[in-house]
């Protein structure tokens, strides 16, 4: 099979995406440090870069740019590697997508820097940013669509040439991720293009705030689940190879992927548990819709740890849990994603807890939620991406991972683990005590409750200092592997399926899964959205309150 090594153009594409990704990590990381220092009461941010500007940029840089560019760079490398090189047409589409995203990103950043778009990553109307902010977001979405359709063309081409065969597992994950990216971005595209842009230009006077908010969350939660699905692909496909084993059941893996695609979009509703305008029975139905996504993750938890145990025992591991000693703990390509997986245990448990109505009411919009997504995204997803970078970057740059960089990577992993545990842990506790999210430093007139939060905020600052060291180390390591490390061959570690396993072909029927996805989305959203439109209050004019 012609691999990506034979195709330098594909490598340039993925390397460019990874560079953008890690530059965004560096910028977003420093903004995060500034915010932590502010929340700790140690730093008053200047009016040229106030807390809310910084927070808007931090969210967009990390949740959108860092994770989207990594995901696309990684999966395009995977498509090129497992499907025999990208088609020239696909590569062209993906580059056009890159250009659109860059232009879009510039249009988004300028109003943020000019303090004309301090509306956060969620940009809830009736707060209205400068129109260019929304136009930029639209271009980013269209850019992502170009990459999604590129991937579909690539996979369809392979299937045509390989009738009756299963799409290789990493390309299967890529298909799932791009299907979800496309369908999840439809509601937000409608919100931005049809509702917000005409309103922000003043062509229409008012907007339906509930509909816009609901469309946003159909997208917003799915987006972060897509990054999680990307991390999962490395857990199922890459990590078993790194420890010298084979994958878990191919069929179960594909069933997990299908379930995560089909059931995902409706999960966004749990962001609206304490909203007005949605009836209790609808909210109850959505508890099920949200918790259902937990099930494939629980399947994953079993599968991964079973692979570790099986592999370690094959290599001579003994005892009830003594086999863990056989794992390659000193290999950063294993250690980082392993800690990422372990962190998903508390992260996922917290997610299940806060999806239920009454528990959500305790923590909604508090720092608990910030702790939750730093555990899920900042730890589970980001550390997996870091772990992947230690073979993906040298693979693309035709260099090798040196023992020195491996060691720095282990230190980086330690810094990140300590920092995130301290920071996200304190955030969870202080959130339970009532500290709100997205709020710059305030003692609320020296109120005793608010003063009681200070100690936890100090721990957040200490965590953030560990994390910024982690960011700098990680970016240095990526640059080293990209440009400085010794030349050599690095392989793309894809674990084999178990011997003699035959997966039924129905897993390849994407048409059925997409129809199911649409049916479930319709079940979840048609009734509440119709009610929000039919019983709509008079709309809201735009406000600029910052």
């Amino acid at each position, binding site marked *: 099979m012609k691999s990506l090594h034979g195709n330098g153009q594909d490598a340039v594409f993925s390397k460019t995406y990874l560079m953008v990704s890690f530059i965004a990590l560096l910028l977003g990381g420093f903004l995060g440090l500034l915010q932590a220092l502010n929340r700790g009461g140690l730093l008053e941010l200047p009016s040229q870069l106030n807390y809310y500007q910084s927070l808007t940029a931090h969210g967009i840089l990390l949740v959108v740019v860092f994770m989207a560019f990594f995901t696309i760079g990684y999966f395009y490398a995977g498509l090129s590697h497992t499907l025999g090189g990208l088609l020239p047409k696909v590569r062209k589409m993906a580059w056009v997508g890159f250009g659109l995203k860059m232009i879009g990103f510039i249009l988004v950043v300028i109003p943020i820097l000019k303090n004309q778009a301090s509306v956060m990553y969620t940009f809830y109307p009736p707060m209205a940013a400068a129109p260019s902010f929304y136009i930029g977001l639209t271009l980013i979405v269209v850019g992502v669509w170009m990459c999604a359709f590129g991937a579909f063309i690539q996979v369809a081409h392979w299937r045509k040439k390989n009738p009756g065969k299963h799409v290789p597992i990493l390309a299967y994950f890529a298909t799932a991720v791009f299907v979800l990216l496309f369908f999840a971005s439809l509601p937000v595209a409608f919100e931005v293009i049809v509702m917000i842009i005409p309103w922000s230009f003043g062509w229409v006077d008012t907007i339906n705030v509930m509909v816009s908010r609901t469309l946003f969350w159909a997208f917003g939660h799915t987006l972060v689940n897509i990054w999680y699905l990307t991390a999962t692909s490395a857990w199922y496909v890459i990590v078993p190879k790194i420890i010298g084993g084979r994958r878990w059941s191919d069929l*179960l893996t594909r069933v997990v992927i299908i379930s995560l695609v089909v059931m995902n979009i409706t999960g966004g509703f749990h962001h609206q548990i304490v*909203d007005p305008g949605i009836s*209790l029975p609808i909210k109850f139905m959505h*508890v099920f819709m949200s*918790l259902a996504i937990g099930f494939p993750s629980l399947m994953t938890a079993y599968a991964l740890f079973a692979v570790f145990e099986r592999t370690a025992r094959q290599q001579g591991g003994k005892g009830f849990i003594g086999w863990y000693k056989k794992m390659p703990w000193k290999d950063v390509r294993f250690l980082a994603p392993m800690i990422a997986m372990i962190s998903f245990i508390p992260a996922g448990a917290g997610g299940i807890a806060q999806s239920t109505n009454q528990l959500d009411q305790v923590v909604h919009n508090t720092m608990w939620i910030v702790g939750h997504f730093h555990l899920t995204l900042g730890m589970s997803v980001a550390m997996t991406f870091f772990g992947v970078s230690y073979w993906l970057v040298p693979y693309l740059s035709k260099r090798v991972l040196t023992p020195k960089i491996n060691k720095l990577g282990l230190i980086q992993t330690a810094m990140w683990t300590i920092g995130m545990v301290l920071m996200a842990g304190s955030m969870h506790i202080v959130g339970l005590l*009532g500290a709100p999210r997205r709020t*710059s430093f*305030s003692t609320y007139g020296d109120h005793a409750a608010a003063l009681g939060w200070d100690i936890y905020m100090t721990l957040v600052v200490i965590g953030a200092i560990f994390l910024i060291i982690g960011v700098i180390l990680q970016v240095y390591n990526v640059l080293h592997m990209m440009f400085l490390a010794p030349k050599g061959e690095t392989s793309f570690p894809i674990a084999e399926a178990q011997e003699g396993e035959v997966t039924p072909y129905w897993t390849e029927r994407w048409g059925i899964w997409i129809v199911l996805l649409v049916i479930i989305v319709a079940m979840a959203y048609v009734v509440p959205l119709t009610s929000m439109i039919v019983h709509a209050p008079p709309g809201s004019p735009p406000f600029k309150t910052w």
Partner: protein
Amino acid sequence: MQMHRSEKIWLILSFGMIMLFMFATGYQSFSLGMGPPSGQETIDPEKVDQTPPFNQPGIRKIGENEFEVVQTLQVFSFNPTKIEVPTGATVHFILTSKDVVHGFEVAGTNLNAMVMPGYIQKITQTFNQPGEYLVLCNEYCGAGHQFMSTTITVK
């Protein structure tokens, strides 16, 4: 599809746990009346001051140690501020926003609701412990969001 026995047990437990969460949530919502705040009534967000009951925000006694608080939220304040109730009082909050999306949270209680322009949000709490409770906006609403707070004194 071949599944290990331990995997089947794990998946049954997983499914059972999800069902347990469902059951607990449903029981609390529909049998104990502990459902999350879900106000269904609407209001013209540009005419809040002219629309009853918000034309007269304030606190009103409606029963034996039972009160109704009609409150508007706007950048960056609550109206009325500094509410006082006796210990053990049950307070029904009736809330709406005059501008952007706000949050109504009382630290140390389960009072936590989104307050959106155009909707009348309702939430109830019994204050059994005396003290000065911190009321704050927990949805980012603009440059002065961190100053948007007031208190409820229970004595």
